[in-house]
């Protein structure tokens, strides 16, 4: 349990319900905001050895997917190994609306969210009967079906199994190619990511989010207080898939293509790992987990190439897997509640300093 601060009193429900309630919390938010504003300059300037803007942009996209998955796994207690599949649906839906129907990109992105949410609700139906490992296997089926359809349906494909999306154009504005494009994308993706995190954070402090947590903690008691457990589970699948749909749509637009290869089972597992490493049942944890799991492999690759030189290129993928696996194992052993918990503990440490507790 995190320490609760003493000496902080509230005189209205409004003040108490706020996400940031103390000066320190506002100061921290300002710091984060400043960092996010400076990040593209840092990534193209002093930090370009370690951080690249396109990696950061991808992090912003996967953050959205991870927030969605944490609502499902961390808050509702329903495991899913099909999250990658739902990103795939979002990617192709956005692509179809943009390339095949020639509709404006925002329309396609919106459609991707809605359609993926609906499909997620449908594929979430097994959750009404199954729990735990059995549910995981059932969601595996949805993953397989989606990838199968996406790779067999040739109308979707421009070459191979890939659909190409032309550069994002909204009204008169068109995204620049390459370098400058990364900058522009950064701001677009940042807005989407921040709004998604905020929406997730709000959802879990509202009555809907609370009913999800009730189902997670004690589904019989949840039913006994009037929660329609069936509805809550299906809703959670829909919400989670909606986030996945958005992430997938942005992914397709950003990368300029949609292909089932990107969204295979490994991607789904990566998302589950993000949620676990970040911290189950924490929206902030989803952000930490997404950033960590996406950036660490890149950093490991860089470090290995620095140490071993270019003749290591062929070994890097394997070594990277080993390092990565080790890292996750250490996490599960030493901090199963994830990065979010580590952050809480750090805060407690400074709050109590110089005392230990």
């Amino acid at each position, binding site marked *: *349990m995190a320490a609760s601060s003493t000496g902080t009193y509230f005189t209205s429900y409004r003040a108490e319900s706020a996400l940031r309630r103390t000066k320190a919390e506002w100061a921290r938010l300002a710091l984060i905001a400043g960092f996010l504003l400076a990040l593209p300059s840092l990534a193209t300037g002093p930090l370009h050895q370690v951080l690249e803007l396109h990696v950061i942009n991808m992090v912003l996209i996967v953050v959205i997917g991870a927030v969605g998955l944490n609502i499902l796994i961390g808050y509702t207690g329903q495991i899913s190994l099909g999250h990658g599949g739902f990103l795939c649906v979002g990617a192709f839906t956005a692509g179809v609306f943009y390339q095949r129907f020639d509709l404006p990109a925002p329309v396609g992105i919106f459609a991707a969210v809605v359609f993926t949410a609906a499909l997620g609700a449908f594929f979430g139906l097994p959750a009404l009967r199954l729990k735990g490992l059995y549910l995981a296997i059932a969601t595996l089926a949805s993953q397989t079906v989606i990838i199968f359809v996406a790779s067999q349906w040739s109308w979707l494909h421009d070459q191979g199994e890939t659909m190409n999306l032309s550069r994002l154009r909204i009204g008169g504005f068109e995204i620049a190619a390459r370098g400058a494009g990364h900058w522009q994308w950064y701001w677009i993706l940042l807005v989407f990511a921040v709004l998604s995190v905020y929406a997730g954070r*709000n*959802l879990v402090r509202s009555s809907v989010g609370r009913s999800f947590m009730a189902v997670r903690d004690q589904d019989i008691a949840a*039913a006994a*207080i*009037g929660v329609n457990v069936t509805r809550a589970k299906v809703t959670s699948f829909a919400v989670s898939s909606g986030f996945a749909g958005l992430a997938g749509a942005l992914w397709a637009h950003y990368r300029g293509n949609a292909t089932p290869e990107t969204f295979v089972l490994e991607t789904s597992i990566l998302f589950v790992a993000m949620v676990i490493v970040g911290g189950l049942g924490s929206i902030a944890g989803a952000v930490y987990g997404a950033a960590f799991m996406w950036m660490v492999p890149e950093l490991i690759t860089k470090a290995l190439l620095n140490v071993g030189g270019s003749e290591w290129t062929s070994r890097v993928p394997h070594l990277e897997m080993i390092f990565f696996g080790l890292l996750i194992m250490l996490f599960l052993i030493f901090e199963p509640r994830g990065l979010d918990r580590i952050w809480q503990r750090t805060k407690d440490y400074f709050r109590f300093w110089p005392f230990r507790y």
Partner: protein
Amino acid sequence: MLTRAYQFDLNSSGVAAGEPLLDVSGVSLRFGGIRALSDVSFRMRQGDIHAVIGPNGAGKSSMLNCVSGLYRPQEGRIQLHTVRDGEVGSTDLVTRKPHQIARLGVARSFQNIELFGHLSVLENLMLGRHIHMKHRVLAGMVWFGPARRQEFAHREFVEEVIDLLQLQAHRHAPVGALAYGIQKRVEFGRALCIEPSLLLLDEPMAGMNAEEKEDMARFVLDVNELRGVSVLIIEHDMSVIMDISSHITVLDFGKVIGDGTPTEIAQNDDVIRAYLGDDE
């Protein structure tokens, strides 16, 4: 002016005091070969504290689970009488799902505490308000506006229950970390937040020390006498039952062996035999 008077009604049943509220008729429940309940019938009246007693394994909890829809009896009817806007009606609970029964205002606590362990006392109690709240995903994501307004409106109700049960000190504590007696009280509070038309309590005082028992008995009496909530209570402590209940139904091996006022029950030979053992 600040007043300490409670603004909210806890009782949501429109049935007049003394009128039938719950009719259990011919309920039989089997688990494979085990007959947990056989042909159980009794009537409960509005405004009563109606106790269900009996030895271990008599089927008391099973009876409660049938009322709240967690178990479905193979035979029999369980009718909840309602009065809405002057309209008299009744609903058969046997065919309903637990969450539908909860929406009728049937609230309950469990023999083995079933709280939402990772959530705070406040969140647990707010969940008690679930049936009175709207659950819109988009409004929740936006928060400002309807979602927040609804939150504060129900918070006022919850604060009243916190006040009534003296849970102020624990408001923000995660329930999993609380002492057993406090957890029992939180669970009772969560049921009150439903604004019950019928409150089912499965051994609310089990495992408590004398002092905690007295507190709990006081709360149950307050809720019943001052706020008009009808209570169906299972309890093993006979002295408590004799003191607080207005009507008692006795179960033994799934059958009703006695039904009446505490004085009648105290003189019932079958009941005495069931409790003291049959020596012949």
